[in-house]
C-alpha cells in the first residue's frame, strides 16, 4: 500500500476515516450529535477551554506523568531500551481521566446537568464518576453484570463517588451491552444528558474528540524522550480495546516515518479458539455503536461476543481510526493471549515494582516478545495505561492462588 503524506488530518468533515467512522445513530440522536460536534469545534478553537483543560490535567490529574526507563525489564528482555509511559500514576489510576476532564468541560459548556457513561473494567466509570463529583453533576454508569462481578472494587469506588451504577444483563453482560444501554438512556434523555464515551469509538465527533484529549500522552512522550535521549523513539507499543490509550500515544507520531507503531489486541484464549477480542485480526468491517469499523461478527452480520481476561479489552469492535491505520498499513496490529498477558503482569510487578493493569499487560507482553530481537540502542516506549490494583482478584483466580481468600469472589 502506498504511504500517505500525512496520517494526522482525519477524519473528514463527515467523520469518516476512509471507509471507517461516520455517524450511524438513530435520528433522535442526530441533532444532538451535530450539537456535540459544533460545541467541540468551538471549544477546541477557544484558548480559554484549552487552558482550562491543561489546568485540571496539571493540578488535578497530576500531569505530566513520568516516562520511566525500566532498567530491569530492559535487562531481562535483553535488547531494546524500554521506557514506560506512566499513565498508571494519574489520579484514578489510568489514562481514562484525561478524556473525562476534556469531555466534562465540554458538557459544562453545553449546559448539561446529567452525565451517562459505559464502562468495562470500571476505569472509565470511575474516571467519569470522579469528574462528576468534582463538578457536582449527576452521574449514571452502565456496566455489564459480568464486569460488575469481576471488578467489584471499581464498582464500590463509583458508588462512593456518588454515581449510580446500573447493571446491564442483556447479551453477555459486558462492555458492548453496557454501551447499548447507555445509548438507550441517551435517546430517552436527549435534552438533559451528555454521553461521556470512554474510548475512540461511537459516532463522530467522539473518535476524534477522545483522541484529541488523549493525545496529551503522545505529546508528553515526544518531549520527554527528546529530553532523555535527544531523539524520537524507534517504536511505540500500546494495548487496544476500543483503543484510546493507543490513539493518544500514537497520534502525535503518525507522521514520523522512523517510528514503528504497534497496537496490541487481546487474543483471549487464542485467535483460533473463537474466544478472543481481536477485532482487527479476527473481524471484518461492519456498523455498530455509531461507527463503521472492524467487528467480530458472523456471516449474517450478527455481532459476536468478545473474550478477554481483561474487562477493558472485552469488546467486539475497535475505534474506527485504528481500522483505517491498519488498512493504510501505518500501524502494525498484533495480538496477545490471556496467558501471555498474565505472565507479563507478573514479570513487570516483580522486576519493576509496578503492578500494571491487565490491559497494559498485553502491551508489555508484546514488548517482551520483540525487545530481545532489537538492538540495545533501539528506544521502545510502552504505554502503561493503568495500574493493576483493580485486577488482583482476577489474577489470583487465574493463577489458582487462594492467598486472597474471601476476597476472591
Amino acid at each position, binding site marked *: 500500500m502506498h504511504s500517505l503524506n500525512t496520517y494526522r488530518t482525519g477524519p473528514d468533515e463527515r467523520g469518516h476515516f476512509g471507509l471507517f467512522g461516520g455517524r450511524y445513530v438513530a435520528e*433522535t440522536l442526530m441533532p444532538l450529535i451535530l450539537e456535540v460536534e459544533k460545541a467541540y469545534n468551538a471549544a477546541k478553537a477557544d484558548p480559554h477551554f484549552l487552558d482550562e483543560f491543561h489546568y485540571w490535567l496539571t493540578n488535578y490529574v497530576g500531569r505530566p506523568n513520568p516516562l520511566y526507563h525500566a532498567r530491569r525489564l530492559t535487562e531481562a528482555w535483553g535488547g531494546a531500551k524500554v521506557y514506560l509511559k506512566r499513565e498508571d500514576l494519574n489520579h484514578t489510576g489510568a489514562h481514562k481521566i484525561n478524556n473525562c476532564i476534556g469531555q466534562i468541560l465540554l458538557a459544562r459548556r453545553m449546559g448539561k446537568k446529567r452525565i451517562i457513561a459505559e464502562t468495562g473494567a470500571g476505569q472509565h466509570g470511575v474516571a467519569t464518576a470522579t469528574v462528576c463529583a468534582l463538578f457536582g453533576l449527576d452521574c449514571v454508569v452502565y456496566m455489564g453484570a459480568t464486569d460488575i462481578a469481576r471488578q467489584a472494587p471499581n464498582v464500590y469506588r463509583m458508588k462512593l463517588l456518588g454515581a449510580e451504577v446500573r447493571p446491564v444483563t442483556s447479551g453477555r453482560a459486558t462492555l458492548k451491552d453496557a454501551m447499548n444501554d447507555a445509548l438507550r438512556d441517551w435517546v430517552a434523555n436527549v435534552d438533559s444528558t451528555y454521553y461521556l464515551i470512554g474510548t475512540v469509538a461511537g459516532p463522530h465527533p467522539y473518535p476524534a474528540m477522545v483522541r484529541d484529549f488523549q493525545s496529551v500522552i503522545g505529546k508528553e512522550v515526544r518531549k520527554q524522550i527528546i529530553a532523555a535521549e535527544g531523539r524520537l523513539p524507534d517504536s511505540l507499543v500500546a494495548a487496544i480495546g476500543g483503543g484510546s490509550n493507543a490513539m493518544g500515544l500514537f497520534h502525535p507520531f503518525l507522521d514520523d516515518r522512523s517510528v514503528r507503531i504497534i497496537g496490541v489486541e487481546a487474543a483471549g484464549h487464542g485467535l483460533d479458539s473463537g474466544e478472543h477480542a481481536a477485532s482487527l485480526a479476527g473481524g471484518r468491517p461492519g456498523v455498530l455503536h*455509531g461507527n463503521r469499523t472492524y467487528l467480530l461478527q458472523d456471516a449474517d452480520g450478527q*455481532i459476536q461476543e468478545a473474550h478477554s481476561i481483561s474487562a477493558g479489552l472485552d469488546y467486539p469492535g475497535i475505534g474506527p481510526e485504528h481500522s483505517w491505520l491498519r488498512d493504510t498499513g501505518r500501524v502494525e496490529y498484533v495480538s496477545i493471549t490471556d496467558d501471555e498477558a498474565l505472565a507479563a503482569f507478573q514479570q513487570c510487578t516483580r522486576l519493576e515494582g509496578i503492578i500494571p493493569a491487565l490491559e497494559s499487560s498485553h502491551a508489555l507482553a508484546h514488548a517482551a516478545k520483540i525487545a530481545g530481537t532489537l538492538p540495545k540502542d533501539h528506544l521502545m516506549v510502552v504505554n502503561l495505561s493503568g495500574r493493576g490494583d483493580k485486577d488482583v482478584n482476577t489474577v489470583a483466580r487465574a493463577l489458582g492462588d487462594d492467598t486472597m481468600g474471601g476476597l476472591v469472589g
Partner: protein
Amino acid sequence: MSRIAARFAKLAAEGRPALVTYVMACDPDRATSQAILDGLPAAGADIVEFGIPFTDPMADGAAIQSAAGRALAAGGSLRLTLEMVARFRERDADTPVVLMGYYNPVYAWGPESFCRAAAAAGVDGLILVDLPPEEVDELLPHARANGIDFIFLTTPTSDDARLPTVVGNASGFVYYVSITGITGTRSASRQAIEEAVARIRRHTSLPVCVGFGIKTPEQAAEVARVADGVVVGSAIVQAVADNAGTAASVSAPLDLVRALAAGIRAARASGRTAAAAV
C-alpha cells in the same frame, strides 16, 4: 404504483388511516412467526413491518430486545427474514411489507445485492434505525433502483431546520417516532403528536405514520384521528412472547391486531361524524 402508494391511495378513498403492525421475523420460532405474518392482513393490518433479528437492538426496549433474542436462538437471520417474506407474498400480492431493523446485517450482505434480493422476495420498504440521512447514500440508490422505499424516521428532536434533511429523500411514507426514547416505553400526548404531524406535513406530502408507545386500541384510536397510519409494535410482540408455546401462540397476537384495527376504524368513523357536526 408501488404497493405502499397503492395501499395509502386505497385507504384515503375509504377515509381511514393505516394500521401498521410490527412483529419480529422468527419470533418465537419460524413456523409460528410465519403463521402470524400470514394472518396479519386478515386480522386488519394494512401494512406489515417485519423485524430483522439483530444482536444489538440499541433503539429498542425490553419487549423487542427479548424478541430479537428469541428469534436469534430460533435460527433467525436476514436471509430467513427474506424467505419468510417470499412465502407471505405467495398468498398476498397487495399488502406492503416493510423490513425494519439495524444496518449491519444489510451491510454484511452487501447493500446492492441485498436490495435486489429483498425486491425479489416482495419487500416494499426498508427502515434501518441506525442509517440516518447523513449515511444513507451508500444504500439509497440501490433501494431506489429496486423499487424499495427507504422510510425515514422523524422524531421530536427533528425540528424545522432538520426536517428538510430527513424528508428530502423520503418515499413511501414518513415514520414519526412520537417520543424521545426506545420502543415500548412511554407514550406521547395526543396534542404533542398532533402538533408534530402538522409540522412534518409542512415539509412533505407523503403519508405520516406515528409509532412508539402505542399499545392499546384506545391509544391507536387517538392517534388515528391525526395521522395517516398508526404503528403498533411492542404490544403485539409482547402478545407473541406471552403466548409462545401455547395453543394461542398465533391467535392471541392476531386477536390484538383485530382489536387495534377495530379501534382505528371506530376513531375515524366518529371523527368524521364530529367533523360533519361542526
